[in-house]
């Protein structure tokens, strides 16, 4: 928001995309120290390691904060499992049981329980990033294409790994094309299946990314109207709409984490049991 305000001060425009993009500084206008200029806390910049720029950006920082919060809350709730949970543990346990009984076991069968730790981590990791991104001055790590691409790549490799472990490398490659196909059709089917193989993680990546930035852009546009029109009279409508979208964003945060987990479970199951 500080970034948006800065943009507005300069030329009366709201820098919506700037708010969405990754930067190598954190927005901390509430902190006051001699090295914080314009409310920006600069993050360390590293020399490229093996040709990769490993500099810390704000999305990485917020992903770490989400991870730290995730690990802290989960260990606080479940570090010592009790027979009858209470409070937050109860709510989080309901989510775990929901994912197990409504997603993993129906989609993957009893064998899917092996993938429970991975799928639960995926769900909660995405959920915490989504929800933490709604805190003012924070950044949504899952609104970064690199982050969603990484998650989709992890999902993709777990899927391929499940196929290879269950059917062997050759069996897995053979299973990419449906069995009993006439030879001439293979010329068409093989490219289609290869495209499908890549399209699945690509869709996972884009769906999460687009859903996360869309809500943020819409909220920012509604609030930006106040600045752009230079009128207090639009403020009530803008704030009301932004608040409604904010609530919707909380819901979308859950839904997108759920969809990502569900589709990953589905893809893993399809790779592990190609006959169905």
């Amino acid at each position, binding site marked *: 928001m500080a970034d948006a305000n800065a943009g507005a001060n300069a030329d009366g425009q709201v820098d919506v995309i700037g708010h969405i993009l990754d930067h190598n500084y954190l927005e901390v206008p509430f902190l006051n120290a001699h090295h914080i200029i314009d409310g920006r806390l600069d993050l360390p910049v590293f020399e490229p390691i093996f040709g990769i720029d490993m500099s810390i*950006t704000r999305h*990485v920082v917020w992903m770490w904060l989400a991870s730290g919060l995730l690990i802290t809350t989960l260990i606080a709730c*479940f570090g010592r499992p009790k027979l009858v949970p209470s409070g937050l543990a109860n709510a989080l346990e309901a989510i775990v049981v929901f994912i*197990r009984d409504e997603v993993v076991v129906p989609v993957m069968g009893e064998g899917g329980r092996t993938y429970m*730790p991975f799928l*639960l981590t995926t769900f909660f990791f995405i959920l915490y990033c989504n929800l933490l991104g709604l805190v003012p001055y924070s950044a949504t790590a899952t609104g970064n*294409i690199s982050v969603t691409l990484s998650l989709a*790549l992890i999902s993709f490799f777990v899927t391929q790994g499940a196929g290879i472990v269950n059917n062997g490398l050759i069996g897995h490659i053979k299973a990419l094309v449906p069995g009993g196909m006439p030879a001439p059709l293979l010329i068409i089917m093989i490219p289609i299946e290869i495209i499908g193989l890549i399209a699945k993680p690509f869709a996972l990546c884009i769906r999460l990314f687009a859903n996360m930035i869309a809500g943020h852009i819409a909220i920012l546009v509604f609030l930006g109207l106040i600045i752009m029109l230079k009128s207090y009279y639009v403020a009530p409508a803008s704030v009301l709409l932004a608040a409604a979208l904010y609530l919707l964003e909380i819901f979308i945060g859950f839904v997108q984490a759920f969809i990502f987990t569900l589709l990953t479970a589905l893809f893993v199951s399809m790779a592990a049991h190609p006959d169905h």
Partner: protein
Amino acid sequence: MLLTPHAGTIAWTIITFFVVFLILRAKVWGPLLAALDEREKSIRESLETADRARAEAEAQLAEHEKRLNEAETEARKIVGEAREAAEKVRSQIVDDAKAEAQRAIDQGRETLETEKNAALAQLRAEVADLAVGAAGAILDAELDAERNRKIADDFISRLPDSQGN
């Protein structure tokens, strides 16, 4: 910029995800999933135990009802038998009483007959004696018809009233 993947961020995300995964798998998911299974097992076992206990209770109830029915049948049978025995005893007593009465009546009748016969025999003997006496008296007196009649009448009128029957 918005849609350009950044290699460093990808690397950090994958590293972060795996660190989070490893920590959570060790500290949270293992114990939690085990605890969930444990709890579900305990609930299932409790339900099964409750089901078993209920089945047992129902079986016991049925058993008790059966025994109760049996006892009632038994009691009814005993009462019936007792009534039958009592009836038998009663009719026995009545029959005995009737027989006894009959015997008493018969005996009485027999005694009566004997006594009547004895009385008749005695009466006959007495009448014969009287007739002999009267005949003697008549023979003693003169054979006058007028007087004879008078003598007979006097004799007869002197007879005690007990001869009247």
